[in-house]
């Protein structure tokens, strides 16, 4: 795997940008897709946001100063694009962001690209009830096993706060799944 600093140099140089961008997409497309998918739920929406993310990365790569890891920078772009997407959908439908998510979760059972069982559906319903940032923390730690330091760079929150948020999220979701 190509060293990150070398990849960044190639992305910034016009003569190597295209090839380097292909490498970038190959390396990160699946990770970013699943991160986005857990935020927007539907495959079609995740596809839109993922493509927007890579296009933004391509256009913004010259602004990348190398002070954080390339992948945490890209994750931050993906997260912002997903949130922007949800906000636009909420404005278009004239409802709140939380309602957009509730609707998306309600449609999961009929979604051909969701093969979860009853408990997995309950899990998504429980996650959707958390505050937005806590949802991100939970998904990134529980499913992606992301390091807290990387999460801190992406979300702009301290490691201590992230650990607390995650622990609270786990307890809430467990209680929700065990209820009924």
């Amino acid at each position: 795997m190509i060293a990150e600093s070398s990849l960044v140099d190639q992305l910034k140089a016009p003569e190597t940008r295209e090839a380097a961008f292909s490498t970038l997409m190959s390396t990160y497309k699946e990770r970013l897709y699943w991160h986005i998918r857990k935020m927007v739920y539907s495959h079609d929406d995740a596809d839109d946001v993922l493509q927007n993310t890579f296009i933004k990365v391509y256009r913004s790569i010259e602004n990348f100063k190398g002070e954080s890891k390339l992948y945490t920078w890209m994750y931050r772009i993906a997260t912002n694009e997903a949130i922007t997407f949800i906000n636009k959908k909420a404005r278009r439908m004239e409802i709140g962001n939380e309602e957009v998510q509730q609707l998306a979760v309600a449609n999961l059972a009929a979604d051909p690209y969701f093969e979860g069982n009853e408990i997995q559906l309950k899990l998504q319903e429980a996650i959707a009830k958390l505050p937005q940032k806590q949802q991100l923390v939970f998904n990134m730690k529980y499913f992606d096993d992301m390091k807290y330091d990387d999460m801190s760079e992406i979300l702009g929150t301290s490691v201590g706060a992230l650990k607390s948020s995650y622990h609270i999220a786990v307890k809430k979701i467990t209680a929700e799944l065990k209820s009924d």
Partner: protein
Amino acid sequence: MNLDNKNIEPNFGVPEGYFEGFEAAVQARIAEEELRALVSTAGFIAPDGYFDQLEPSIKQQLPEKQTKVISLFGKRTLYAVASVAAVVVLVVNLIGNGNGNNENTLALDQVDPQLLVAYANSDAIAFTDAELMDFVSEEDLETSLFSEQQLSDESIETYLLENLDDIDLITTYEE
């Protein structure tokens, strides 16, 4: 070996607050494992072949390389030229319409200067490029093409905030 000596200094350090947070960390791990025993995966799947077709689809949307087009005329130069040309045309017409004997002649000093400028800046005047070239010196061209003016980040930001309606367009991905 003398095992009675208990004053052995540890050679390893630990992060600050490690022991204070240890109990909470263990409890958090236990809670997480309890949840994982119930459910550990999200249940989402992607369509077959989706990731294989993704890259060509994105590449189609990337901006094409475009040759930068530099206009021969900056706006300021164009307005200046149009203003000068309008004044010249008016003067020529005023002189050409008689040597002051025509009662319908409008004397230049009777025209409001602001009206002249407004007329020059309006769409009523249309000059061909060739006509405009007569009024543009080489010095004017060099000034418009190679401006020394540098815009500060603050000026750009202020302009964008005042002139863009969609806040999403202002998003930049700097660190």
